[in-house]
């Protein structure tokens, strides 16, 4: 069992009469990418900022690398890297100046030129912050979060508002962090991002954590249904498929047939029957539920609502 790097127990935080986080408990293990997912306003950022020590929780206990984020804030800041959502820099600060300033704040830092080169920013060294594109700004923020080679990296909505190419570049960076042995705690409202990147995710809604686990586990647990869609001119699909054990229903529209079933064996069973019966198939595809379906099922609404 890997070491626990972050542990949060019954976290609660309110702003005035608004409850931002009502009850969140979770653990993040060393070297994993953990994602907190949920709609805007669900409490993702508040939870993350309490863990970083930027906000004081009303209830609950938090430990990061064995430290209390409030009491040991100074020691902790040397060991964590933080990227904020919607936080900018001085408009006319140059890229190298920002990196140099950040580097001056930490006891141990990595080589700034190497870091900028790794993030593809070496040609932008002398550019003002305001002239950078969205993706370049985010990469600079990543540079600032990584300048002191932190053990844990916090990334809040890092790819929001980026075009698909820039988003993919950021995903590669995050995977790179994991490969370097860092623990990554991120928030996102993009289910595809969470499913691709995260070893485990926590689903948060109305300030409470409602489910936690690996994307595959959550899909298997909450959305076991599978679908096979194939195109064929045969008429008696339902009868021929009757002995597929997990088959729930068949819907045919012209020559397109959709089989609803359940469990991992379902697809294989359908293929067996097709082969056994010698059915001539012109098209064949399977539809797997995703994390988005899990989210929809657990919360009763889509992430963008």
């Amino acid at each position, binding site marked *: 069992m890997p070491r626990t790097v972050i542990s949060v127990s019954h976290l609660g935080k309110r702003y005035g009469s608004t409850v931002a986080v009502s009850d969140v408990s979770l653990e993040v293990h060393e070297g994993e990418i953990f994602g907190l997912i949920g709609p805007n306003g669900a409490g993702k950022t508040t939870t993350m900022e309490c863990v*970083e020590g*930027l906000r004081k929780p009303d209830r609950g206990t938090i430990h990061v690398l064995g430290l209390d984020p409030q009491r040991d804030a*100074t020691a902790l*800041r*040397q060991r964590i890297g*933080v990227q*904020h959502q*919607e*936080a*900018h*820099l*001085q*408009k*006319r*600060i140059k890229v190298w*100046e*920002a990196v*140099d*300033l*950040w580097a*001056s*704040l*930490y*006891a141990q830092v990595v080589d700034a030129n190497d870091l900028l080169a790794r993030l593809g920013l070496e040609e932008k060294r002398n550019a*003002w912050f305001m002239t950078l594109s969205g993706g370049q700004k985010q990469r600079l923020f990543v540079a*600032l979060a990584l300048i002191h080679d932190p053990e844990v990296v916090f990334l809040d909505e890092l790819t929001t508002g980026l075009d698909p190419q820039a988003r993919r570049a950021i995903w590669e960076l995050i995977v790179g962090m994991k490969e370097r042995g860092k623990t990554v705690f991120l928030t996102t409202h993009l289910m595809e991002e969470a499913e691709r990147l995260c070893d485990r995710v926590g689903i948060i809604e109305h300030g409470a954590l409602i489910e936690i686990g690996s994307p595959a586990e959550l899909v298997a647990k909450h959305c076991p249904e599978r679908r096979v869609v194939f195109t064929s001119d045969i008429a008696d699909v339902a009868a021929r498929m009757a002995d597929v054990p997990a088959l729930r229903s068949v819907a045919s529209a012209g020559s397109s047939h959709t089989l609803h079933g359940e469990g991992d064996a379902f697809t294989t069973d359908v293929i067996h029957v097709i082969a056994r019966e010698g059915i001539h198939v012109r098209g064949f595809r399977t539809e797997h539920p995703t994390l988005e379906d899990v989210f929809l099922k657990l919360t009763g609404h889509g992430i963008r609502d």
Partner: protein
Amino acid sequence: MNGLLKGFWKLTWVEIKVFLREPLGVVGTLGIPILLFVVLGRTLRDAQPAADTVSQAPFNVAILAALMIAVNAVMSLVAIISIYREGGILKRLRATPLSPLTILSAQVLVKLLFTIVSLVLLMLAGRRILPGTMNVSMISFGAALLLSSLSILSLGFIIASIIPTARFAQPIGAAVLYPMIALSGLFYPVDKLPTPLQVLAQALPTTHAVALMQGVWDGSGWSAHWMNAVALVVVFAACSALSTRWFRWE
């Protein structure tokens, strides 16, 4: 500790560079008061050629220019704090090992440095345009201006704490600070004002700043105006204490 001091100087230096890159930043805060001083100073000189008829007017012009420098520094501080807050820059800095006090002190230091530069330029301009009227101790006048600036800057922090968005920073700053200059005694003696306005004027740092700077200029000096200096320190302490309670980082 040493490392954090390095961070403080780095931040201060970055803020100076960023400010110098701002279009109209330097012209607005340094240029306009000095221009005002030069134009008014020349007008006065030409209107009163005889040396013995020189009234308080020339050095009041110098004090007005000095006060403008301080007030412009405050307006610029208020604007920067609110823009940095709105842009999340304060939040980003706060997540670093820099202490909150360090972050804000660097901003104040930048403004004070520009105030000193303005003062030097002002004095040099004064010696050229109004020879003979500028033989005040630069150190003493500089100290009075710095104390005044610090006191007015602390008031600026309160304004920066309570304004809702950066869009209102400039108008609210102006609405608070310009009437303060009007009541400071520079244009109209404070003791001739209606009583309620007198009470108000005595509570404002600008009034004491003007009295202290006038005192330094006319030779009565710090000993005669220690009450004004104390008032400026009290305003500074009170405003700083209130700002630590009211200040919002985001």
